[in-house]
C-alpha cells in the first residue's frame, strides 16, 4: 500500500520523513548488533568479579521489561489518537508512555547501583564493561525517547507542531518501539540465557 497521506512525500508517494526514520532504525540495528555481539563474546570473562548469575535479579528485570513493553502499547494508542486528531488523548498517552519509560530508566539506575555495590564496576571485568556499555547505551536511547515524548507534549499543547501532527507522533512512536524491540532481545540474550 502506498503511503500518500503524509506530508513531504517524494515522487514515489512515500513520506521522506518516514523513509528517513526507517533507514535510521535499520542503521541502529547495526549499532546494537555490535554491542550485543560484544557482550555475548565477553559475558563469561568475569576476571574474579561477580558472575552474571550472582548479580542478576530476574524478577526485578522482568517487571522492568513488562513496564517497557506496556509503554509500547500506550505509545501506539497515542499514535492512534493522533491520527484521529484527538489532542487530549494523544497528550495523555504520550505522558503515560514517558512515565513508563522513566520508570524503566529508574529501574535501570537502581539495578546499576545494586550491581556496583556488589562489586561489578565498569572496569572490573570484560563482562562488566560490555554489560554496562550495552545496557547503558539502551538506557540513553530510552532517556532520549522520554525527552522527545515530553517535548512533543509541550509542542502539542502550544499547537506548534511543524508539518503534519500525526506523522510527528508516529515518527517518535517508531523510535520508541525500536528501543522496546532492542530490549526484547537484550532481556532474552543477556538476562535469561545463562552463561
Amino acid at each position, binding site marked *: 500500500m502506498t503511503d500518500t*497521506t503524509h506530508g513531504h512525500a517524494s515522487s514515489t508517494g*512515500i513520506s521522506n520523513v518516514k523513509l528517513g526514520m526507517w533507514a535510521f532504525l*535499520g542503521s541502529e540495528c*547495526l549499532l546494537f548488533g555490535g554491542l550485543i555481539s560484544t557482550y*555475548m563474546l565477553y559475558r563469561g570473562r568475569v576476571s574474579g568479579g561477580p558472575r552474571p548469575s550472582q548479580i542478576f535479579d*530476574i524478577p526485578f528485570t522482568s517487571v522492568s521489561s513488562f513496564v517497557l*513493553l506496556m509503554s509500547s502499547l500506550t505509545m501506539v494508542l497515542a*499514535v492512534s489518537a493522533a491520527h484521529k486528531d484527538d489532542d487530549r488523548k494523544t497528550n495523555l498517552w504520550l505522558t503515560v508512555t514517558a512515565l513508563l519509560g522513566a520508570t524503566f530508566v529508574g529501574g535501570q539506575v537502581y539495578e546499576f547501583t545494586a550491581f556496583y555495590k556488589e562489586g561489578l564496576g565498569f572496569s572490573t571485568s570484560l563482562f562488566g564493561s560490555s554489560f554496562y556499555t550495552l545496557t547503558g547505551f539502551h538506557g540513553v536511547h530510552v532517556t532520549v525517547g522520554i525527552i522527545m515524548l515530553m517535548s512533543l507534549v509541550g509542542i502539542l499543547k502550544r499547537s506548534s507542531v511543524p508539518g503534519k501532527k500525526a506523522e510527528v507522533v508516529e515518527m517518535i512512536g517508531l523510535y520508541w518501539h525500536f528501543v522496546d*524491540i532492542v530490549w*526484547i532481545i537484550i532481556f532474552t540474550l543477556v538476562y535469561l540465557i545463562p552463561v
Partner: protein
Amino acid sequence: MTTNTAETKQEHGMSNAGYIRIAIILAAITGLEVSTYYVDFGVLFLPALLIMMVIKFVMVVSYFMHLKFDNKIFSFLFYAGLVLAVGVYAAFLATFKFFIQ
C-alpha cells in the same frame, strides 16, 4: 496534500482493541519467557527462548510499528539493516569460535 480519513484508518489498520489484544499476547509470551528461568525446559530451553524472542520482535515491528500495513519499502529498509547486522555479527562471533564453545 490533504488527509483522507478513510485511507488513514485503513493504513493504520488496527483498532485500539486490536492493539490491546497484541499487548496481552506480548505480556503472556513475556510471562512464558520468565517461567523458563524457574522451570526446567531441558533441551527445549534455548530454542523456546529464541523463538519467543523472535515472535515478540516480529509482533511489535509488524503491528505496533505498522510495518505489516505500510509500504514494503519500509520493511526492506529495516529488515535489510537487521539481516546485515545479524550476518556481519554472526560472522564476527564465528571468527572468535563463539558457536563452538
